[in-house]
């Protein structure tokens, strides 16, 4: 007999725990999400025209990056301070493939993901020997070295001038408007999100959490540290690579300025603001980091009257720095954590 509705949320078997959509309620909400996402661009276009849609697209791309970073930082506890470098690898790979080989978009994106994932595994190899802070330093070094290679390998990357990237196309249908691009970016982000949820619940995900808590204990229960750490880097990098390739096709042009250390820091802020370890956190962080500086634009003119040298990137950076510090100080579990606490509060309210 089925359990009474009161207990429907209780998980009684392991198999149930692994199921992606446990209850009918969850399936309903997910369906609503899909419908909402499909309708979103029309609403955005109504409200704010193309610029708003542009931000939505950027958010989708950022969400993909955040999900990858969250796997690394939130689950495995491995610090990446140079994640923009992975985006760069993905973006330039896509650009080169599209320009030199004329490959269609689905191939460039997939290949970029693979290539970047491969590089991620290689970068992850030193991670086996280096811990914590030192790993952060190493990833930062990787970022700067990548910066340097981008600027100096001119024949490959166009150097400081960057590269032009053709818009994504399927046959003769080009996704060259913001609205059309949305229907590549959003579904892809959704798909990758589902994949990440699955991954986190799998043996792989659990192994990563074990590693985060204690290397030594994890090894003691038979977790192959080497394999999982490098895989974590690989998957995380692959996500960033996919995001990078999407970015390249969307912007139509990439240059070294798109992948600076400041961008890497923004990705870290995304994770901290959203909340380490959760998919919801990735999304919330991506939204926050993409939209907050835009909101701050309203104050930009006012601020510029006091500081005539103010440029938007500075305003962005100030917001990022403040947000980072404030969230660490006051909201270390991020927005997702706060949301969880609010939900808990409401469900236990009478007590």
């Amino acid at each position, binding site marked *: 007999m089925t359990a009474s509705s009161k207990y429907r949320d209780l998980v009684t078997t392991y198999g149930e725990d692994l199921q992606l959509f446990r209850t009918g309620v969850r399936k309903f909400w997910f369906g609503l999400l899909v419908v909402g996402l499909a309708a979103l661009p029309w609403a955005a276009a109504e409200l704010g025209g193309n610029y708003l849609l542009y931000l939505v697209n950027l958010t989708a791309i950022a969400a993909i990056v955040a999900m990858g970073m969250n796997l690394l930082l939130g689950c495995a506890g491995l*610090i990446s*301070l140079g994640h923009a470098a992975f985006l760069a690898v993905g973006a330039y790979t896509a650009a080169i493939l599209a320009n030199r080989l004329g490959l269609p978009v689905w191939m460039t994106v997939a290949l970029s993901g693979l290539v970047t994932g491969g590089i991620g595994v290689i970068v992850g190899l*030193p991670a086996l*020997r*280096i811990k*914590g*802070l*030192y790993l*952060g*330093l*190493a990833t*930062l*070094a*990787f970022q*700067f*070295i990548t*910066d*340097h290679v981008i*600027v*100096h390998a001119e024949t490959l990357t166009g150097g400081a001038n960057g590269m032009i990237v053709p818009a994504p196309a399927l046959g003769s249908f080009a996704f060259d408007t913001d609205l059309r691009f949305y229907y590549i970016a959003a579904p892809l982000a959704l798909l990758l999100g589902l994949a990440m949820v699955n991954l986190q619940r799998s043996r792989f995900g659990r192994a990563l959490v074990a590693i985060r808590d204690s*290397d*030594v204990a994890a090894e003691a229960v038979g977790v192959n540290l080497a394999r999982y750490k490098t895989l974590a880097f690989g998957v995380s990098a692959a996500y960033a690579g996919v995001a990078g390739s999407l970015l390249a096709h969307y912007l139509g042009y990439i240059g070294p300025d798109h992948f600076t*250390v*400041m961008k890497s*820091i923004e990705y*870290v*802020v995304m994770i*901290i603001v959203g909340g380490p370890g959760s998919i919801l956190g990735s999304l919330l962080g991506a939204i926050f980091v993409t939209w907050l500086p835009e909101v701050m634009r309203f104050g930009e003119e006012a*601020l510029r009257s006091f*500081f005539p*040298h*103010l*440029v938007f*990137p*500075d*305003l*962005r*950076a*100030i917001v*990022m*720095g*403040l*947000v*980072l*510090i404030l969230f*660490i*100080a006051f909201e*270390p579990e991020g927005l997702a954590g706060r949301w969880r606490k609010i939900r808990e509060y409401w469900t236990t309210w009478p007590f």
Partner: protein
Amino acid sequence: MDTLIQASLSGVAIGCVYSLVALGFVLIYKATGVLNFAQGELMMVGAYIYFSLVTSLDMTPLLAFGATLVLAGLLGALVERLVLHPLVDEPPFTLVMVTIGLATLLRAVTGMIWSHDTFAFPSPVPEGAVHLGQVAVPLVDVWTMAVTVVLSLLLFLFFHYTRLGTAMRAVAQNRYAAQLMGISVDRIFTLTWALAASLGAIGGMLLADISFLHTNMGFIGLRAFPAVVLGGMESIPGALLGGLIIGLIESLAGVYLDPILGGGTHQVLAFVILLVVLMLRPTGLFGATLEKRV
């Protein structure tokens, strides 16, 4: 041969700057356990303060120098009190993230106030060079080396012959015991940040003098990281030596490697060295072995 000597000497000069930055890192790390990613930015702010004092307020170099040290020290103390101190019990990784946020803030605010243009630095040292045979050593390089030597000496005397300096060493070695003896660990932390900021300011003034004033100076400070790691994170002589080594390698690479591998190689070399050191000997040349206690 002359090129070698020339490159080496200019390498030592820039190495001195790296040493000072590395010194700032090590001071804070030793005492508080925090790796201050904003050390490069503190260096940058110091240089800008001096710049404004001299160009906008027409201060004499000596007065401006003193005022910069004081203002930088105050900034360091303020940062410690307002941002680090409330978070003192957080794990080191969290505090490092906070310093990254700080670095971002400092750089953006500096750009907001002064813009991101490049400025020529009002040098207290006359133009010209010292000539040793065929080798010409710019006076500013000599000045940098001299300041660094004097500073190192003063710091040594401070840490070993004054009570405050000894107390700072004590706190760095054993915070717990220091607290039990009634030493105010809080005050020592604040002083450490103030000192590191002032040191950074001196490094910044020297760097801006050697090259130019620009908001990217903080990134150059990051090139001192390999020096810190090479020196073993907690060793002051190690940091000084590490900085000189990095400077030398960079300079020599600039002369000998750049023509082969393309311009700018020497700039990224520091990070390649960092990666190599981290992978081969993360505890540096002087550091203690990292033990993992279970």
